[in-house]
Every structure is written in structure tokens, then in C-alpha cells.
């Protein structure tokens, strides 16, 4: 696999994190912003052992096939979750024919899957380069949406804390791991120092999470109880001028980020499948996307990310380093 730059690495992962925030169901408050940020810092701390291994010039290969297999399974499951989020968000985001029941949603998911097959089969370098451009354009669109949304904001919404505690939001933020599976995989293929790359990503993630959630709270805070998707609703309420809405701009960002979120999972899974089962040489991306879509179908009803998911994230971040040290100890013995 070829190497990507730090900017490409961060863009790829942040697009996925933003997509997850767009699809966030359940109510949000300022506590959510703080809890999620704390969760991200915790994710960073859990990933330090792995970063240390990469800093020594080692790769995921050195952690053993078992570690690669576990991460592959996690990526497939998380890819499925992304499909499930996309499926659920179809209720609130207007896509022509996409809101017309099962087949409409199925068509949207299928189109995205086909494009993802193409993108992921183009290789990680092409994916990284295009992600950087897409992310930059997306950020510009998003800024317009956020500024337009802020016109409709109400500062008093910040005082509405809701019934969520800091701990529950921290767990939720930690569980919403975003691209941690692909983070583990891509970090090894990113030019530059792993610690700097990882720190850059997590700092960016905290900033974006705070910006998006606070905007969501400011705009949707007053109607939080009746809204399913607070961030998406905030975007839909964006209205820069009296008679003009720009929620379609949000649709563009949402679609592009959805494609790249799933494509990066497919690309990472494609690579890991090749490592775990080298006999499979062709159609790996297609196979992985099919697996993700199937998992997504199974998890389509799930919207709550609690303790179970948090444990899975902790395991995934620690499994590879533990496996590496055990392997080294056994070799030493």
C-alpha cells in the first residue's frame, strides 16, 4: 500500500467523524459537547501504546494476524454502522426518491455502495488525494451552513442541559469512535511522525465536534425534544436570507462525506483482508462493502451507542499493542 500525507490522513478521518455527527440521533446539549470532547481525549490516550509501536518503525503486520483480523472485523462492523446511520438519516434528509420507503432508501444505499466500490478500488493514494479536496470543499459549504444556522441561533439554548449526564455523554462520545479502525490502519501508512499525525487528527476532531455540536445546540436547542436528528435539523434551519434556505447545501456535504466515510472503511478492509486471507486477490472491496451493507442491515434499528460500544472501542485500540508485546515476549522467551 502506498503512503498518504498527514493532511490526507486527517481529512479522511475527519470526514467520517463529521458524517457520524450529522447522523447523531438523540438529544444534545453543551454537556454533550464537553462529554464528547473528553471521550475523544480518552480515545487518544487509549491509542498512545499503538502510536508508540508505530513510532518505533513497526507496523500493524508486526502485531500479528490476529490483531489484523480483529481490526478487520471491527472495520466491517463499523462500516455496517455507517450504512445503518445513512439508512436512518434518510428519514430526515431529502434525497429525491430516497424518502419513498424501503426501496428508496435501498436505492440510495446501493448507489453509495457502487461509488464506494469504485473509489476504494482506485487505491488509498487516490482516495487520500480526493478526500483532501472534498474535505476542503465540504468545510467551505459547512461554514456557510453553520454561519447561516447561527443567524437562527438562540444563546439561551446553551443553558438547556437536558437529562444527560457528563459520564453518559463521555461514554457515548468514546463509543462513537468514528474511523478508529481505519485510524489504526492508516496511521501506519502516513508519512511523518505517528505521534504528530495522531495528535493532529484528535485535535481536529475535538475542534470540529465542539463547533458542530455547539451550533446544533444553539439552533435546535429549543426544539430538541421534537427533533430526531439535532445536527441535521440545525442545518435544515439554515436560512441566510429571508426567503432562501440552503439546506440543500447540507445535502451535498452529507452525501460527499457519506461516500468518503464508507469508502475509507472499504479501502482499509480491502487491505486488511488481503493481509489476513492473501488467497483472496480480486473483488476484495466489493466483498467488504457487501459485508458492511449486510451488517448495516442487521444493525439498522440501533441508534444508541452505550457501554458495549465503548468496551469494543477500548478493545480495538488496545488489542494490537497487547498482541505486539505478547508476541515479542514469546519470541524473547
Amino acid at each position, binding site marked *: 500500500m502506498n503512503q498518504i500525507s498527514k493532511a490526507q490522513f486527517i481529512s479522511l478521518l475527519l470526514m467520517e467523524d463529521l458524517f457520524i455527527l450529522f447522523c447523531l440521533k438523540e438529544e444534545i446539549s453543551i454537556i454533550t459537547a464537553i462529554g464528547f470532547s473528553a471521550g475523544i481525549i480518552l480515545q487518544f490516550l487509549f491509542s498512545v501504546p499503538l502510536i508508540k509501536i508505530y513510532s518505533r518503525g513497526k507496523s500493524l503486520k508486526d502485531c500479528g494476524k490476529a490483531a489484523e483480523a480483529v481490526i478487520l472485523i471491527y472495520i466491517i462492523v463499523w462500516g455496517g454502522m455507517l450504512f445503518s446511520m445513512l439508512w436512518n438519516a434518510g428519514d430526515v434528509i431529502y434525497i429525491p426518491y430516497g424518502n419513498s420507503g424501503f426501496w428508496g432508501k435501498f436505492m440510495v444505499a446501493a448507489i453509495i455502495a457502487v461509488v464506494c466500490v469504485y473509489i476504494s478500488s482506485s487505491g488509498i493514494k*487516490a482516495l487520500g488525494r480526493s478526500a483532501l*479536496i472534498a474535505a476542503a470543499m465540504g468545510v467551505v459549504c459547512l461554514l456557510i451552513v453553520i454561519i447561516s444556522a447561527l443567524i437562527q441561533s438562540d444563546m439561551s439554548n446553551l443553558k438547556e442541559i437536558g437529562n444527560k449526564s457528563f459520564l453518559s455523554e463521555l461514554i457515548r462520545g468514546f463509543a462513537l469512535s468514528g474511523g478508529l479502525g481505519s485510524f489504526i490502519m492508516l496511521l501506519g501508512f502516513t508519512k511523518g511522525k505517528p505521534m504528530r499525525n495522531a495528535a493532529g487528527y484528535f485535535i481536529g476532531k475535538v475542534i470540529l465536534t465542539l463547533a458542530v455540536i455547539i451550533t446544533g445546540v444553539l439552533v435546535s436547542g429549543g426544539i430538541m425534544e421534537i427533533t430526531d436528528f439535532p445536527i441535521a435539523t440545525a442545518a435544515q434551519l439554515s436560512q441566510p436570507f429571508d426567503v432562501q434556505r440552503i439546506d440543500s447545501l447540507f445535502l451535498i456535504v452529507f452525501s460527499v462525506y457519506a461516500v468518503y466515510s464508507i469508502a475509507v472503511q472499504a479501502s482499509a478492509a480491502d487491505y486488511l483482508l488481503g493481509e489476513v486471507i492473501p488467497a483472496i486477490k480480486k473483488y476484495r472491496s466489493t466483498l467488504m462493502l457487501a459485508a458492511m451493507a449486510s451488517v448495516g442491515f442487521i444493525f439498522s434499528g440501533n441508534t444508541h451507542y452505550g457501554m458495549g460500544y465503548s468496551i469494543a472501542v477500548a478493545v480495538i485500540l488496545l488489542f494490537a499493542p497487547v498482541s505486539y508485546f505478547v508476541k515479542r515476549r514469546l519470541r524473547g522467551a
Partner: protein
Amino acid sequence: MQQNNRNLRIISGLKQNIEMIKKISGDSSDVLVNEFTTGGIKCALLCCEGMISSQMVTEMVLSPVTNIPQQDNAAKLFSYIQINKLFSLDRSEAQDYDTLFRMLSSGFAVLIAEGMNKALAFGIQGYASRSIQEPSGEGNILGSHEGFVETIRTNMSMLRRRLKSPELVMNLMVKGSKSRTDICICYMKDRVPQGLLNRIQKSLDEIELESILSTGYVRPFLEKKSFELFSSTGLTERPDVLCSKLIEGRVAVLVDGVPYGIIIPRLFCESFHTLDDYAYKPYYAVFIRWLKYGAFILAVLLPAVYAAIVMYHPELLNSTLLLLLVKEEKNAPLSIITESFLVLLMYEVIREAGVRLPKPVGGAVSIISGLIIGDAAVKSGLVSTPLLTMTALAVLSGLVVPDLNPQITVLRFAFLISGGLLGLFGISILACAVLTNICSTEDYGFPFTAPISPFSAKGMGDTLIRQGFRKMQSRGFTVEEYHESNK
């Protein structure tokens, strides 16, 4: 059989030699054989009719060759000619018939003699060729008005005139088993990355075509095999543009018979650059450059976005505009996507007719179709005025970036279909696929999308903006900076 004969060494007997030449050429009428005796040795001067200058052959070859004193044998005659007679500056020898025929076909006069198993060739080319004219497709206001012509030697001289440095290297080679086309690789030896040069040479070695009649025959060998929407090699018909690329460490390939030079590698952002950018003040050059970026996006997306907004996302429009569009589209008998598709298709038909027809008729076709058909279509209510305006604007914008016209044309249709069927969602999804395809374009390790992605802050000085020459001269840019290994 004839192919085998061509590889034979030249026979020493003059009569048999001439017979063999006639046999290989199929006694072709344009191969002229003039037998004569000079220095006491029987000789023949061969040439191809129309390929040589009759004045030069008389003054430089026939007149001096008849004034040679008595020689003992043919070897001494050839030696005398080579030492004492300067028939032409471009002199060569042929040991076999293959080389002999290549010389003849390139405008050389070939001398053979009794008892000599080689031939002497003198370059006295004088074939009719187009004179240097202004390039037709790369307009320029403040720069040179010279464009490449079909003769490779003239094109090489145009480069040499502009780059007088001994570092400019031009290597000629012959490709095409039947056409025997001259191909010239040009580069600055102190600037070009050696790896790039070697790989281009290797790519050219893969050419086993029978004929090379345009740059289109060569370019696929210089590009990646996988499907790429955009070409990673560029074309120019301007020697000054080619020289500027050579100085940046790129390689150029000239093909005889084609008034274009191939530039390797080419970057996406270069499609928006013209030589005039460097003649104007930077602020105006930046304005023009951004105008072109905008025009490219309009050319590709405008019809699609119009269809998508009117059909699926009217909330993006303000109420006045929305009411205006609704009123116009309500009267149109066809759906917006069908209407747009047909108008665009009609434009492409008219354009193709204008290009292929003789120039005077082509102009008339454009006027008739543009004014009469367009006006009639709107007046009869077949096409709505806003849609026609959008389409015309998109088409006009496409002409701002002529380099990318084929891609713009196809992408415009593709985006129109996706936007018409799935609105902005469809456009976004297709944009992701197209963007990935553009970003996957990479030949010889040079990403097509550099310096945007992979990002190079230094490269932005001549991409997003156009820095002044004082800053640019201190930068000393070569294309090697964008190589993947340096990122």
C-alpha cells in the same frame, strides 16, 4: 519477403543493386534513379521525387559530383567525396536497404557505385510544407505568434532558437514499421529527472505500430493503461509554451507531420494557464485564472445544477427567481432534463458540423443553427428561455478552457443525467467518483492534481495566484518538486 529484402546489406554490383532497389520499391514511380559515370566509376544517384530540392540537387550534388578526377575504385571515390566534397551538411551512410529507403523517404539524395556495398546519403530536403503560422487553437495576445508546423526539423529549430543553451537535448528516433515517422525527445539535461526520461524512453520503446500519423498514436503509450478521464500528457502548438515546460524539467515529444508537441507530465491546473498570464500584471492574471476555474465549474455543472434545483431543490432560489422559472418551465412541453439533454445534444451536433464542414459553410451552419433554430425553438415554446440561457452559458464557459473540452462535454452530459435523476445528491455522488478518477491520474510518479492534492504551499504561487517574476525567479521551480517521492 519484401521486409526481409529491406534488411539485406547493400549489394556491391551496381546493376543488381538498382534491380534490388526497384524490386523493394515495387518500381514505384517516385523513386528516381539517375545513372552516370564519375571518376571512371559507374554510379547512380537515387532520390524521391518531390522530397528534394531540385535547385539544391543540381548545385550541391550533381554539379560537383561530375567534376571528380579519375579514381582507382569505388572505395577511393567515396573516400574522395567524403574528404574533398561537401555536398550537404547533413550527410550519412547506409549499409542496408532499410536505411537506404529511410534516407530516400526523408529527402536525402543517395549515391551508390559499382563495387561498393554501402551508399552515401546527402540531406537536400526540399519538400513542400506549410510555413510557420499563428497557432489556431492557442490564442495569445502579448506573446509570440509562431506555432509549430508539420515538419519536425522546423519545430526543432524553433525550440533551439528559443533555448540556446547547450543543455537542450533533442534525440531523434524512428517509429512505425511502415510510416518510419521521426520522433524527437526533447529535454534540458540539467533539469530533467533522469528517472522520468528513462521511463519515457521505455514507454516509447513499447510502440510497435505500423504507422504514426498523429500525437494520438503516441500518447496512449506515454500514459497509464487504466481508465483516466483526463490526460496526464499535454499538447501544445506553441514553441514558447513547450520551452517553458522544458525549463521546468519536463520532457517533450515531437512527432513528424504533427504541429503539436507532447508535454510529459502535465498537471490539471496547467489547463488553466496561458502564456499571457505571465505577460499581464499579476493581479489581472490572477483574475483571469480564477475566471477560468469558475468557467470550468460552470461548463460542467451549470445545466445539471439548474435541472436539479428547478426539479428537486427550489428552496435554494429566492421567490422572484422561482416564480420566473416556474412560469417559463410551465409552458415548455418537455421535462427539464429532456429539454436540457436535447439542447446540449443539438449544440454538439452543430459544433461537430461546424468543425468538419469546409470553413465558409461551417460558419454559415453556425449562424443558421445558432440564430434561426435557437430563436425559433424559443419562440415556438419548445425550449424555455432560462434553460437555453443556462445551456449557452455552460457551452460558452467550456470554450474558456479549450484544453479540457472533450472532458467537459462528456462530464456535462453525465452530470445532467445524475442531477436530473437524483438532484444535488446525484451530482455530489458523481462528483466524488470523478474527483477520485482525477486524483488517481498519475504517470511517472507525478500526481495530476499536484500542487492542490498532494498539497504544496510553494506550488500555490503559480496555481491559485500568479506571483510576480521577482518571486518566481528566486524559486527555481522544476517539476521534480511535485514528484510523489518528494511529498
